């Protein structure tokens, strides 16, 4: 087992032992999953809309070069600037250089998974900048120095008592367990942060190629403030997060909130086109940082459709594995079914080979995905990649070779079945085994194992026929 796989198993063990986490996960995933169903029910022709959404995303990916060029031109025409970053290092450097040249000291951020993917905050803080997250969930995990555990609700793993204690310790406020009180504290604190920030960094839910518009959705309004109060706005965007036109954007917007939280629309949907025009307020400068970081390499491959993801989190909420282990166990910024594919796809199987294995391939994610991404298919492909790279555990590799060799030779197969039956019988009591040796011992840690039947099916069938 590789080191990263060992680490994964350790995180899983910790997660499964964390009772509070399990309670929180149940509550969150149940709520989101049932809300999603209600939300979709309010959309006429929802299956057709999903088909359209998928077509829009896939077409964009196929034409991504032209779309990006069109987007860049349109952003420029509106007075903004587009920067291109091949990888995490470049992206951080672009933001840092910009911050330095504009004498930025204080940064306020709204939710950006890209920025977490590239560890932007760390780079900025190491360079001496003050960086504060404004989304309440992100604010909480920033104070706790943790990674997000859910794409939509980053702090799901925390109880209100834990948040209360965190606020008291880090903010010096009186201890409270009342979520409303805590939200009020956050509002007051962050109000100052917005007003004093030199730079606002946001994510991008969708870019519109035709108009150079970036669309950002929130319920809190923190993104609206992040992009409006500070003098400079930097928007971090994955190269794949484009749609061609405003009409296409409408399709995505109708599905995004419904799939994520069941709302028809989030409270705030901000469409930003360039910096301040001849307007009273708004930022003086708008910079869009386009990040590749392994995405372009997936285009034109069987993994391309993972880039169609709109980051709604629906797959997490229906995943029976995510529900047991939560987001942190995955060890990646992107958890759940989408993370199990995206993370090894852009980060490499060497580091992330456990993730595609952590699935029973039940298919609930594929059913829930608004753009119908076939995640189980890609999980299987990643597993095949692992096997082809000769990274299967030895027992599995040889076990399967042996199994295939016998399964293609029926007489040998029957003989092996008899032998196995005899062996299992020797160690059983009352038809069951309470213990199997490694590497199968995982089964018997929580289950018994039955002996093989006295007569196999083909033996029974044979004797039936001769009577």
């Amino acid at each position, binding site marked *: 087992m590789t080191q990263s796989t060992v680490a994964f198993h350790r995180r899983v063990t910790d997660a499964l032992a964390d009772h509070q986490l399990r309670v929180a996960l149940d509550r969150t995933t149940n709520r989101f999953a049932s809300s999603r169903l209600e939300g979709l029910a309010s959309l006429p022709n929802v299956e057709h809309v999903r088909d359209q959404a998928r077509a829009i995303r896939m*077409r964009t990916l196929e034409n991504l070069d032209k779309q990006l060029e069109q987007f860049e031109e349109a952003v420029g025409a509106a007075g903004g600037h587009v920067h291109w970053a091949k990888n995490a290092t470049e992206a951080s450097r672009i933001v840092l250089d910009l911050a330095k040249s504009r004498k930025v000291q204080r940064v306020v951020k709204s939710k950006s998974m890209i920025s977490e993917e590239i560890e932007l905050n760390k780079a900025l803080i190491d360079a001496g900048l003050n960086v504060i997250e404004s989304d*309440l969930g992100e604010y909480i995990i920033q104070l706790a120095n943790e990674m997000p555990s859910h794409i939509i*609700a980053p702090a799901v793993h925390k109880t209100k008592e834990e948040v209360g204690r965190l606020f008291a310790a880090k903010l010096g406020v009186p201890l409270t367990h009342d979520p409303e009180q805590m939200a009020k504290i956050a509002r007051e604190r962050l109000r100052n942060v917005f007003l004093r920030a030199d730079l606002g960094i946001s994510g991008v839910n969708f870019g519109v190629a035709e108009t150079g518009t970036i669309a950002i959705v929130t319920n809190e309004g923190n993104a609206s403030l992040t992009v409006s109060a500070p003098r400079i706005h930097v928007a971090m965007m994955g190269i794949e997060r484009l749609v061609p036109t405003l009409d296409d954007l409408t399709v995505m917007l109708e599905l995004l909130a419904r799939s994520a939280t069941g709302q028809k629309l989030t409270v705030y949907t901000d469409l930003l086109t360039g910096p301040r025009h001849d*307007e009273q307020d708004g930022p003086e400068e708008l910079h869009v940082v386009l990040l590749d970081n392994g995405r372009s390499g997936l285009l034109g491959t069987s993994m391309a459709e993972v880039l169609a993801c709109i980051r709604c989190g629906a797959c997490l909420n229906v995943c029976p594995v995510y529900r047991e282990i939560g987001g942190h166990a995955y060890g990646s910024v992107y958890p759940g079914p989408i993370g199990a594919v995206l993370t090894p796809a852009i980060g490499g199987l060497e580091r992330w080979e456990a993730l595609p294995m952590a699935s029973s391939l039940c298919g609930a994610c594929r059913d829930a995905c608004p753009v119908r991404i076939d995640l189980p298919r890609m999980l299987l492909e990643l597993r095949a990649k692992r096997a082809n790279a000769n990274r299967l555990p030895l027992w599995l590799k040889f076990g399967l070779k042996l199994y295939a060799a016998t399964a293609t030779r029926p007489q040998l197969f029957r003989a092996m079945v008899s032998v196995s039956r005899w062996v299992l019988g020797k160690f059983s009591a009352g038809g069951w085994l309470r213990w199997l040796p490694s590497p199968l011992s995982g089964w018997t840690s929580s289950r018994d194992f039955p002996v093989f039947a006295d007569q196999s099916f083909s033996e029974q069938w044979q004797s039936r026929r001769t009577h």
Partner: protein
Amino acid sequence: MSLDSRAAILSQIRQSQTRLEEPVRNKVEVEPIGDTRGDSENLVERFSREAEVAGAQQHRVLGQEDAVEVVHQILCDNDASDILAWNSTDLLMGELNKTLIRRGYRLLDAVLPKSADERKVKLGQLAQAQVGVTGALAGIAATGTVVLASGPDRARLAWLLPPVHVVLLSSHSIYPTLSSFFSEREDCVRRSSHVAFVTGPSRTADIEQTLTRGVHGPTNVHIVLVD
């Protein structure tokens, strides 16, 4: 450096296209989404229902003068003295500002200076406003959303900063759905650097899934629907 990366990324993308098996699809014909039926009365009803679900407070008035009175009442209820208001002649804001000044309210000017330090000072001042009063470009009936488009006399911060937002919406400007809005008003993103679709007051459920209002955006949203 960014230019090199640009070339490298585009080149990688173009290379990937040679691997595509099927020809590149035609433009996706997007059909309008949602229920676009309804006469204007239906639209207002639907809008009201959805806006209520979203947590906005609503006041329906007949004509400009009544609108002014309702706004005045909301200001009183909130003990407001300092206000951020849009100053446009369209969107029903016409006489409103003059009236408010006459009645003793202080209308803060929301123009942000270009220099960094002066901007922050001004922001601090603007943050004192208790209420923001704006118009709306349109309403969306399917979701109870108001569309707020920035402009020369229409500051974003007017509705974002204060804890109370009063928005005047003509009942004739309500579109059935998001797609019906865009099919007519696509150009809004060309005119405004910020077009916001706002559905009710600010909210979060980030702490134990408990719904809380007024986290960063306004805590109270009053929609004044003017016939």
